[in-house]
């Protein structure tokens, strides 16, 4: 009786094999190739002229790269926490059994249907001192009103954070709302009987239950932090000056415009290491700890 079972398993494996091979060669192979190129002097075309850590030394001596890394941290922390908090509050709001729930749900989720490019452009127009909000308030009568963060090199990165939170918090809301709807109604009944204030229930009972949902949201949000490129290009083009540059833009500029594959791949490798460093604690918890317990 065992024979058919083995054969079907074998067939399944054989079917998967090509995809595994493709995935390994394309994803892992290309990653390895990229890393290898970062140790070469490749310009427009890839070459194998080994130059050691030269590209990395230049990378970390480049002001623009350092500014990019700082911006990724500022953007990452504010964008992730902002979207989580706003998304959670929106979900809680909708969970209060409000009227026209589906209307609000759609409105809050709608920004997520727009790409980062469209989001960036729309916010660029809205925050442009000569066209948008500032001009509108001035025309309405308050003539000394000034809101020029978009063109101010010290604040421009925060406008990018605003726009990104506006775009992403709808998604977080949808995830959180699904989580909230999954909470056992008995818990609510029990806390009502005990007379626990609602905010404390949310803080001490509901949020821990939502743990996995929050985790998923964080992963989704951090991915858009690392690959963040389009919103910056559409909103500020990295400017004023180099004030809103991000690592992905540095890599693509050096790849596409500046014909320096070596330096671009060094930047990409640092980005990859950042992702691995961010994922390491999770991988540890998920695999090593589980293994120890099992």
């Amino acid at each position, binding site marked *: 009786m065992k024979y058919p079972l083995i054969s079907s398993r074998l067939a399944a494996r054989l079917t998967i094999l090509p995809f595994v091979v493709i995935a390994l060669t394309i994803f892992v192979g290309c990653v390895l190739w990229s890393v290898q190129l970062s140790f070469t002097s490749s310009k427009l075309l890839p070459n194998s002229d080994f130059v050691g850590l030269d590209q990395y030394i230049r990378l970390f001596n*480049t002001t623009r790269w350092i500014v990019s890394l700082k911006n990724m941290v500022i953007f990452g922390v504010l964008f992730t926490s902002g979207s989580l908090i706003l998304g959670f509050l929106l979900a809680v709001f909708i969970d209060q059994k409000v009227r026209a729930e589906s209307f609000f749900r759609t409105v809050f989720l709608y920004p997520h249907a727009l790409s980062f490019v469209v989001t960036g452009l729309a916010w660029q127009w809205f925050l442009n*001192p000569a066209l948008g909000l500032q001009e509108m308030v001035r025309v309405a009568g308050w003539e000394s009103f000034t809101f020029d963060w978009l063109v101010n090199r010290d604040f421009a990165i925060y406008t990018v954070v605003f726009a990104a939170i506006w775009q992403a918090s709808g998604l977080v809301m949808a995830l959180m709302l699904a989580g909230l709807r999954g909470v056992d109604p008995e818990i609510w009944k029990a806390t009502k009987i005990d007379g626990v204030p609602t905010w404390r229930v949310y803080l001490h009972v509901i949020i821990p239950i939502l743990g996995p949902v929050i985790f998923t949201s964080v992963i989704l949000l951090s991915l858009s932090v690392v690959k963040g490129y389009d919103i910056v290009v559409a909103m500020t*083009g*990295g*400017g004023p*000056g180099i004030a809103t540059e991000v690592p992905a833009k540095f890599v693509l500029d050096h790849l596409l415009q500046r014909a320096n594959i070596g330096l671009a791949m060094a930047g990409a490798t640092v980005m990859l290491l950042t992702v691995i460093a961010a994922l390491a604690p999770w991988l540890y918890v998920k695999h090593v700890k589980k293994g120890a317990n099992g």
Partner: protein
Amino acid sequence: MKFKKYLSGSVAALCLAATCFGTAALADGKKAEVIHWWTSASEAAAIKVFADRFQEAGGEWVDNGIAGDAAKQTFTNRLLGGNPPQVGQFNVTREFEEIVDAGLLNNLNAEAEAGNWAEVLPGIINNVIKRDGNYYAVPVNIHGSNWLWYNKAAFEKAGAKPPTDWDSFFEAVDKLKADGAVPLAVGGEAWQERLTFNAVLLSVAGRDFYLKLFNDRDAELIKSEKMGEVIDVYTRLRDLVRETDKGSPGRSWNETTSMVITGKAAMQIMGDWAKGEFISAGQKAGVDYGCIPAVIPQSPYMISGDVFVFPKTGNEADRETQSLMVNVMLDKETQVAFNNVKGSIPVRSDVDPSKLDPCGAQAIKLTSSDATHVGSTGMYITPDLAGAIQDIYTEYWNASDMTKEDMVARLVETFETVN
């Protein structure tokens, strides 16, 4: 198992289809696929001049316009992947020399000799399209990137005169400012700030300085007094723009040009592509707007342009098609027709100047003698170094805490470390 069979079947079908297309493309004679990045309305109209003339000459033009930098990337990838188009586009810079060295392009010596390129093309451009004595690219136009465009009505209203040197430039600025116009509008994007810096550099330091700096890579010059003067003028412009042109950061060049067209701003430093905006707004050169090549008269004019290259495709018939394309693109009449639409001037100096507009007529005088023009920085230095110094220009233009000495030190360091 059924699924697997289906899968392998469809893969086979796909492969078959691909080979079919492949052979079909090879079999055809005068078919030329052209990868280019001229996709905006006026650019598309310009390249259509080439396409029409090529069809008339018996070729078949297969248009593959890809907007932006992706065009070069697509072209390079297909070249490396062994499936090159017959024609690809680059700027007149050193960016295609690696492809030449890798032996991927056809040399055009036969066409060059027949067309007497050495005589009719400007020397600088000749240098860029030649490598080790062989020709590898066809230049099609000359753009000038340092022009001063100004609104004549705004100047008259303020009682200001077009500048003849930087002192009179700032005198005009004061009058224009008092009159309420934005004296000089600058689009605050990195490349526009670089363009401004280069215009100042050429007008203050001159041709020899420029060539020693970029062609001979003499980094000592950056520490010189002359460079100090350049940075001083650049700083004055920066402070002027910060004070009077609040909407500058991130503004595109054509929005900036339209400020000059409407009289909101009086002047803009921009390449001759700005002319297209004046023309499409129905304005006339010398009547509604004025143009000064090289910003300050008697300064060197900075030229750039586009070239087409012709990859080896491994097919003899393609080589003939490419030869036909070369001759169509450099034909005298086609050159005038194409460049009048594009806003640039013909790459050959032996065309009839009366067919050009007043700005173009001034420009072609400057390009006919080697002493009055220089190439854009991209003809002398790599895109990598050009990009790295652009980062410094834009940082300085936007910074509050970066001193002149910082800028000099950073430029020297970049010149010494980046290849």
